[in-house]
């Protein structure tokens, strides 16, 4: 039986940039063992020498001519912005106070 502790889930949540509540961390860690056991069945098959498939259509280097085509106006591009200023996206502070 696989398992994942509350702290393991907290670490994954931090990597995934989701600030989960304590209740969410505990619920997920209680469900994870069962889910991992189910998906671990992929390891029951002998996969020596089998090539991986990342994509159903083998395609390489799809190109197009480099020509100017219509694109979004600045107003349209910013239309969904949570905050904007001077025709730009306004975002929260990116660098720390001391930097």
């Amino acid at each position, binding site marked *: 039986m696989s398992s*994942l502790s509350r702290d393991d*889930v907290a670490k*994954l*949540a*931090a*990597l*995934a*940039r*989701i*600030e*989960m*509540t304590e209740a*969410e961390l505990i619920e*997920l860690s209680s*469900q*994870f063992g*069962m*889910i*991992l056991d*189910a*998906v*671990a*069945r*992929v*390891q*029951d*098959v002998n*996969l020596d020498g*089998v*090539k*991986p*498939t*990342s*994509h*159903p*259509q083998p*395609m390489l280097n*799809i190109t*197009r001519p480099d020509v100017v085509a219509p694109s*979004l106006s600045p107003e*349209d*591009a910013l*239309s*969904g*912005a*949570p*905050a904007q200023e001077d025709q730009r*996206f306004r*975002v*929260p*502070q*990116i660098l*720390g*106070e001391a930097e």
Partner: protein
Amino acid sequence: MINKTAAEMADALSKGETTSLALTQAHLDRISAVDSKVKAFLHVDKEGALAQAASVDAKRAKGEKLSPLAGIPLALKDVLAQKGVPTTAGSKILQGWRPPYDSTVAAKLKAAGVVIVGKTNMDEFAMGSSTENSGFGPTFNPWDLTRTPGGSSGGSAAAVSSFQTPLAIGSDTGGSIRQPAALTGIVGVRPTYGAVSRYGLIAYSSSLDQAGPFGRTVLDTALLHEVIAGHDAHDATSINADVPAVVAAAKSGDVKGLKIGVIKQLQGEGYQKGVQTRFDESLKLLASLGAEIVEVDCPNFEYALAAYYLIAPSEASSNLARFDAMRYGLRVGDKDGASAEAVMNITRDAGFGREVKRRIILGTYALSSGYYDAYYGSAQKIRTLIIEDYAKAFAKADVLVSPTAPTTAYKIGEKVDDPMAMYLGDVATIPVNLAGICGMSLPAGLAEEDGLPVGFQIMAPAMQDQRLYQVGAALEAALNSKWGAPILSNAPSLGGAA
């Protein structure tokens, strides 16, 4: 009028027996009458629909040449961007967002004169099999309002099966068109991967996602398929080839001499008795029409579900990183001094639902160093084995068949706390997605024990989508003549004027 097929409606429009405005209004009235019970729609665009209908009527009056589905109402799954119309993918993180552009599917529908009446409910980001994971509440099955319509395209399937629209668009990453079609007694097709552009389809799992049509008949579904399919330079995985002749195939419906392969692994144990009975009965009908039934072996399908629930969450954990609270969508906690990272973390917790978080965490785990080879890497190799199983099976048969889902529609809330039980409902549909081929579900009748619809699944090789329609049309005609009326005539009227 609303009980007619889309093909019949199109015929009435071309003969001048009705107008698109009248047809659209009749469907808007039906939505007003029944959707408070079914909850198929997240947004109804009454103004936009009536404007499009009026424009099509004006063109027709001038004698302009119109596409076969011009003026016909349609419901669009909320996973597809439609310019200026709220598009959420069922997620609170996108509540209020109005896309500044059209998805290619929406653009093609508009260009063909199809009337998009609204956006339909779905499991958040298409992650789910019951529409219960929507951030805006579940959709209810028109056959029994205490049951789920399936998912993730449950809103689209429920809209068509309750006569709110004759046609709808869904998307199918692991069965999300075929399974709800099965559970609501309609036809749904997942086209070959790359046959319909993914541009503007909000991504869940990019190597598996594919939009496709719903209809109440095989021919209606084919007519819609032809409108949305085709190469698109905006999608690098779009196939640059002619669209298979699906409408011609739906009109021919001849299966004489065709080899139909029954997949040994997708029947029997684990399948509800009434589902298996209807499936076996349909096989006999196909044999009586001159098809040759053979059994095929796909031993690696046993591992398809496990591979899917590693590949899809892995791709999702990457795709959903774009919801960062910076350029569009929800932003929470943007107070003085809060860092961008803190705002992102809080917003993603507030905006994503339980199942989406579960899959992002699972995907993050499967892709993390130390586990990558054992989980994601192994799943990719299983994918190769499934493609090889299909290749061997298609060497023996022109199409493959199975029940679409192991059970009929289950009760709302029945599986919501048991993710593995929910995932098992996709066992027969997932192999198609992993291999990138095409599949159809069409109604095979009602299960004896509960009187609910059963789906019959047909699968064909990549870019042989016309075979689905050929076999589907033959089976549909045989079943209809046996029943004496289409299956949906048995569904409750829901109190609205029908």
